[in-house]
């Protein structure tokens, strides 16, 4: 495929704006030419149509990317958000002129609090990791407000997403990694010895990153609370349990939610997401972003009294929030539970149909995702999880998440989501079984998969050793 710059011809273009009026710029000007593409609109359109053709969206087929919750993104969400009454509103308009926006935010906060069992929520964080950072700063601010400066450590299980330790480090905490036990649960003894007067908090995903609900969760949060720390809930896997159980009832004090996972807003090729941070009432005073109150029927924006400061400009990824609220309005109370139940059912259904051929990392009822391990296969035949994932591409299927969590070797993590039909799951199972046969018949060939895509396996070493990160105009 040609780059947009390779299609450019000097002098081409469409007049989108009238010529500028005479004006004099009395500040230093750029001297180097501005080498943006010069294309007819038709070319622009075709260029991106070609790029779209080599991009895989959720509608392109089954997308069982573990820990990413690639559910269907309903079309009505776009309709709801793409109204001029939302898109063309300036964030610094007077309160009276943005009552609709504030109403959307207030409702979204209320519903998300109810689902997570929290008392307050900020919509300012722009993504999950951003929500983690925000939540950890709430914990930091709380300990400080009590004069407790000794709490410098955050406990993170070794199965955690990389964002957890990275967020803790950004919030200025030292990370204490604790091991998981043989079931993938938090090792209670390790937690007991790690928790102490220097513990600021614990970060946990539950269901955890191997797809299991940790049955000791109440004991875990109690250990941390008894040591004087707070419990942080990473909402990455909320899709499995919403309406079934709530982090707030499990002993968590702070949560973040990924609207772009659980609440069906599209991933956009990597973003924008939205990562609201919720907390119990005693942390509310530290929340960043806009706090909404009502005075004489008018919604007003204010700031929390001891806020940690902003984590982003303005109110957050507002248009993403509109989409999540539309989704919640559609599915409603019963739909929340039905969504979670069927996400878990679809995962168990697939796991049960694969477990005779693919070793599961843990032998238990899974939640919304399950982890297979190809360690033995790699050892016996040299065929890796990567090889198997790439073979799926030849059948038009998006591979599962590879090599995560780190505690499972040669991991493939499958998350079907609730929006897939039984037929799709059956077809996917057939493909998984077929590539296993292929791998056994000709292991060597697997290292070359995929065979059918225009672009084959890229040379990542070359890309990283001598990085080329922009087009070379040649002059």
């Amino acid at each position, binding site marked *: 495929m040609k780059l947009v710059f390779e299609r450019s011809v000097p002098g081409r273009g469409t007049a989108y704006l009238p010529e500028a009026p005479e004006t004099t710029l009395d500040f230093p000007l750029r001297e180097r030419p501005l080498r943006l593409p010069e294309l007819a609109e038709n070319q622009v359109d075709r260029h991106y149509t070609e790029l779209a053709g080599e991009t895989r969206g959720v509608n392109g087929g089954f997308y069982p990317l573990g820990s990413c919750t690639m559910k269907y993104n309903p079309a009505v969400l776009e309709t709801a958000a793409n109204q001029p009454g939302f898109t063309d509103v300036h964030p610094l308009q007077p309160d009276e002129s943005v009552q609709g926006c504030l109403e959307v935010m207030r409702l979204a906060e209320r519903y998300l609090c109810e689902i997570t069992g929290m008392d307050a929520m900020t919509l300012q964080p722009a993504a999950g990791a951003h929500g983690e950072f925000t939540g950890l700063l709430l914990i930091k601010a709380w300990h400080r407000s009590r004069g407790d400066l000794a709490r410098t450590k955050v406990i993170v299980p070794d199965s955690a997403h990389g964002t957890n330790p990275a967020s803790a480090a950004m919030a200025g905490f030292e990370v204490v990694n604790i091991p998981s036990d043989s079931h993938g649960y938090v090792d209670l003894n390790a937690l007991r010895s790690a928790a102490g007067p220097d513990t600021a908090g614990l970060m946990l995903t539950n269901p955890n990153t191997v797809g299991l609900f940790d049955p000791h969760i109440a004991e875990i949060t109690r250990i941390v609370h008894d040591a004087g720390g707070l419990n942080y809930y990473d909402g990455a896997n909320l899709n499995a349990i919403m309406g079934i159980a709530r982090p707030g009832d499990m002993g968590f004090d702070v949560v973040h939610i990924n609207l772009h996972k659980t609440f069906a807003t599209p991933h956009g090729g990597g973003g924008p997401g939205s990562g609201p941070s919720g907390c119990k009432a005693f942390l509310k005073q530290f929340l960043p972003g806009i706090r909404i109150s009502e005075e004489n029927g008018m919604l007003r924006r204010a700031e929390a009294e001891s806020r940690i400061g902003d984590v982003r400009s303005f109110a957050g990824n507002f248009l993403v929030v509109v989409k999540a609220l539309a989704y919640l309005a559609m599915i409603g109370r019963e739909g929340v539970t039905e969504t979670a139940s069927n996400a878990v059912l679809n995962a168990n259904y697939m796991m049960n149909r694969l477990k005779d051929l693919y070793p599961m990392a843990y032998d238990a009822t899974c939640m919304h995702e399950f982890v297979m391990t190809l360690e033995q296969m790699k050892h016996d035949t040299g065929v890796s999880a990567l090889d198997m994932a790439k073979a799926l591409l030849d059948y038009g299927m998006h591979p599962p998440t590879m*090599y995560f969590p780190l505690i499972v070797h040669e991991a493939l993590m499958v998350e079907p989501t609730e929006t897939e039909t039984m037929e799709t799951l059956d077809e996917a199972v057939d493909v998984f079984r077929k590539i296993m046969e292929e791998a056994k018949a000709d292991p060597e060939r697997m290292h070359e998969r995929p065979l059918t895509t225009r672009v084959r396996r890229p040379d*990542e*070493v070359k890309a*990283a*050793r001598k990085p080329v990160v922009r087009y070379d105009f040649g002059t």
Partner: protein
Amino acid sequence: MNFPKELKYSRTHEWVRFQEDGTAYIGITDYAQDQLGDLVFVNLPAAGDSLQAGEAFADVESVKAVSDVNAPLSGTVKEVNDALADAPEKMNEAPYDAWFVLAEEITETDGLMTAEEYEAFIAEEG
């Protein structure tokens, strides 16, 4: 695999080439580069930084992993091989030419092994 006799080796797979003037070059062993796979980048310390035996002083990157490189001795960084950053493949191709730092004011050198000892050590470890 190649383990030159004139070098000393640490249990965390670094080599040391002691110079007559009391300084020493430090790098990673052939075994280390083989285990790490294709290396794409190295984070080096700055001249003047202190080295603490057994503690990380640099890290090396492959495409999908980062690994600490530990100081095999205590001392001070006299010189840094900046050229390595532009040619990370040298760590794979010629690990004993691809020195990371030249150390001076060396104090602690305990526990370093000879080539024979190191070879026996990795045979046992692997």
